[in-house]
């Protein structure tokens, strides 16, 4: 990875992780949605610096959608019955997860190789998606279908119950 890509990688990493922390601590839906969008921008930048430009474009669109959904002003708040101590334990568990996985990444023995990619490569990705991993693409399409139908049905049932 050359210096320009490396700088892009580290800047994008800072934006994505910083945006994630803002999601955790910012109050209000609008601010949280903006933080998700910021984090998505960072993740798209990470993909671009890793020569995964097409994934970066897809992530940019999908994370913008996630940000809009999370910033939507009128979805219902569902308070968790879990107490403060358990939430603290969950936060400590997240830190422990980071420590364990970071240790595994640091101690891992990886073989480096030369990468000759770099282009967006939509045709190659399309071939992989629809020929090599057609079942995966079909499963994801089914997930999107079920999610959209389920979201619409749940929304309508609640509206009718009012």
């Amino acid at each position, binding site marked *: 990875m050359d210096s320009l890509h490396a700088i892009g990688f580290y800047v994008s990493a800072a934006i994505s992780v910083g945006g994630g922390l803002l999601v955790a601590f910012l109050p209000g839906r609008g601010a949280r949605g903006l933080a998700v969008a910021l984090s*998505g921008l960072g993740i798209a930048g990470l993909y671009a610096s890793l020569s995964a430009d097409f994934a970066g474009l897809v992530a940019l669109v999908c994370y913008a959608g996630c940000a809009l959904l999370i910033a939507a002003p009128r979805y219902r708040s569902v308070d968790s019955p879990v107490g403060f101590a358990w939430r603290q334990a969950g936060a400590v568990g997240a830190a422990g997860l980071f420590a364990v996985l970071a240790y595994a990444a640091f101690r891992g023995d990886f073989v480096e190789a030369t990468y000759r990619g770099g282009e967006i490569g939509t045709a190659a990705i399309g071939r*992989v998606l629809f020929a090599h991993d057609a079942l995966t693409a079909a499963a994801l399409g089914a*997930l999107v279908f079920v999610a959209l139908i389920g979201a619409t049905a749940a929304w309508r049932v609640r509206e009718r119950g009012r």
Partner: protein
Amino acid sequence: MSAGLVAVLFVAVALVAVGAFVATWKRDLSSALAGLPLMFGGAGVAFAGAARFSAAGDPKIFGQEVAALLAVATLALVALGVGIAGRGTSR
């Protein structure tokens, strides 16, 4: 300045951990959904990084494919979660 697979995995792990933190820290379950894109993003970065720096194995584009699939799955799951939460008052 350069970045290798270990740096990529560190960032991926940080994203997954921050996402798990958001999911556990937020008292409002609808807000906790915001942790999902971060965790899936971390997984996608790990896949894209492993494909970018891998020594062998075809196709090289596999990591990018999984990253794109994870991004679409994230959007679908957040939409489903927000839809299940339903419409309510702004907070």
